[in-house]
């Protein structure tokens, strides 16, 4: 029992450590990537003992600054909700990671460890539920601030997130139909098989390309970043966190990055085979041209974790690149895209998938 518990705690620790560090790292990536895109150099003036490390220490400087800044609670706000809102935001974003499998079963002696903090049969639903609950943090922040701009920002955020969640959910229905499971670990395992004569892995991107596009767009909207950053709109439109300062603001900021990572993890899990590497089976590499290469369980699992991490990083990179490429949507355009564009296409995708599955049969 104690061993079980410590394994779980260790897994949760690994996930939290990885995710939070990646979120902190994101602030650096955001600065440097945008600098490279815009022919600039980017932040590089926070040396420690003369080492600049390409400005990496700016993330630490940011954290220290946010923690030591005065935490202002305006006079007329609802103190409880005002304090709770950022915690809600971060909590739901972090908790959603529990259901994301980041590796295949690790076998140590007799013990089989699933590299997933919580084995939930309906992990997909759980992640979506947590993603939806995240909107509470946003609307509470707007509501508790007693600031008209903040509540408008909160309402914009709520409307946007609820609208796009529908497209998001509909897009994922197609994937669930193809693989016939909502257990994310099983879903990834199902993507380990191959098709087209063994040349292509049976990843979601190949079985559900339309769903992937819709998922990607809707997921970007869920993260509330450019081009869908109407809830906050850093420089022009005032967002739901105007009345926040110090680390409470930092937590909203962190939530944005956490949600980006969560969405990257979801996209990887659902459409890019999670921890799968093409031609790598639990027994080793089996190439379509006949070659085989056996690997031990530990190597196999570690390769899987690496593959999962690399895919997440690539998605984060892509999201960041999009964020520095596209301008912001107008609000009516945003709603039109969500309701008149993505939602009907997602619905059609579900119907087409159902018809195809009826003739071809489920993938498993």
């Amino acid at each position: 029992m104690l061993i079980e518990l410590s394994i779980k705690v260790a897994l949760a620790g690994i996930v939290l450590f990885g995710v939070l560090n990646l979120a902190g790292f994101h602030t650096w990536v955001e600065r440097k990537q945008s600098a490279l895109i815009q022919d600039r150099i980017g932040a590089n003036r926070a040396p420690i003992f003369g080492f600049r490390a390409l400005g990496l220490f700016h993330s630490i400087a940011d954290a220290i600054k946010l923690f030591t800044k005065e935490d202002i609670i305006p006079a007329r706000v609802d103190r409880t909700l005002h304090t709770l809102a950022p915690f809600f935001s971060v909590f739901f974003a972090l908790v959603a990671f529990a259901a994301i499998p980041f590796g295949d079963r690790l076998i140590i002696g007799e013990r089989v460890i699933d590299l997933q903090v919580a084995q939930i049969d309906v992990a997909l639903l759980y992640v979506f539920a947590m993603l939806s609950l995240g909107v509470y943090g946003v609307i509470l922040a707007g509501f508790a601030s007693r600031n008209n701009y903040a509540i408008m920002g909160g309402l914009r955020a709520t409307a946007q997130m609820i609208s796009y969640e529908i497209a998001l959910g509909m897009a994922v229905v197609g994937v669930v139909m193809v693989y016939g499971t909502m257990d994310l670990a099983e879903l990834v395992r199902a993507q380990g098989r191959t098709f087209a004569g063994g040349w292509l892995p049976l990843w979601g991107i190949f079985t559900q390309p339309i769903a992937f596009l819709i998922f990607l767009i809707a997921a970007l909207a869920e993260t509330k970043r450019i081009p869908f950053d109407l809830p906050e709109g850093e420089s022009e439109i005032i967002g739901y966190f105007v009345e926040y300062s110090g680390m409470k603001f930092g937590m909203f900021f962190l939530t944005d990055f956490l949600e980006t990572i969560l969405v990257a993890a979801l996209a990887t899990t659902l459409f890019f085979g999670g921890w799968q590497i093409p031609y790598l089976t639990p027994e080793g590499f089996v190439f379509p041209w006949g070659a085989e290469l056996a690997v031990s369980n530990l190597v196999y699992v570690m390769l899987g974790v690496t593959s999962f991490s690399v895919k997440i990083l690539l998605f984060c990179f892509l999201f960041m690149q999009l964020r520095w490429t596209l301008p912001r949507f107008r609000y009516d355009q945003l709603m039109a895209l969500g309701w008149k564009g993505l939602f009907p296409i997602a619905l059609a995708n579900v119907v087409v998938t159902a018809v195809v599955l009826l003739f071809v049969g489920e993938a498993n």
Partner: protein
Amino acid sequence: MAIKTVHRPVLTFWEKLYLPQVLSGLRITFRHFFRNLFLHIAHQFGRLKHLRAAETYQYPEELRPIMSRYRSRHRLTLRDDGSPRCVGCMLCETVCPALCITIVAGEHPDPNVEKAPIRFDIDLGVCVYCGYCVEVCPEDAIRMDTGILDLAAYSREAMRLDIHELMDPELRKPLTDCNLDFPHECQIHEGELRGAWASSPEA
């Protein structure tokens, strides 16, 4: 009144799909990203230094090249013996539209030269950098070619350059030592200011 028809751009089918447009945007940003990344790495190995990876000048360490005609902080040019070329003709003080130059002329030790400045002060807080003083000087005694742009000080007093700083652009206030060996007046020698500034009512 004439009626002007404004033609709104009509999006084509592909533009309405957004995705091709998004991809073309991504192509531009990716091109910049990878070009600059490649150049930054190449610079680390000392290659391709002639191609800039970023438009940024790392300011205090790396100064932007300025044109030779750029009007920066003033300096007084020197004769071979180290004394100023200025003959105290007052043309620059007269032409100065901002009235920022103060000259007190004195007798030059060399009988062939009529006068020399015993005081030459420019108040940079007042100067408008028009360059008339340089234009008007018959002796090429004042120039604005030091290339010094960081003219900042914590007090108005510190913005007033006297003859020491004008003859040696490296000098910065506060001055502790006077190394000029030709006759002149300065705070370090006399202990007090004389001339226009000292007598002006506001000073």
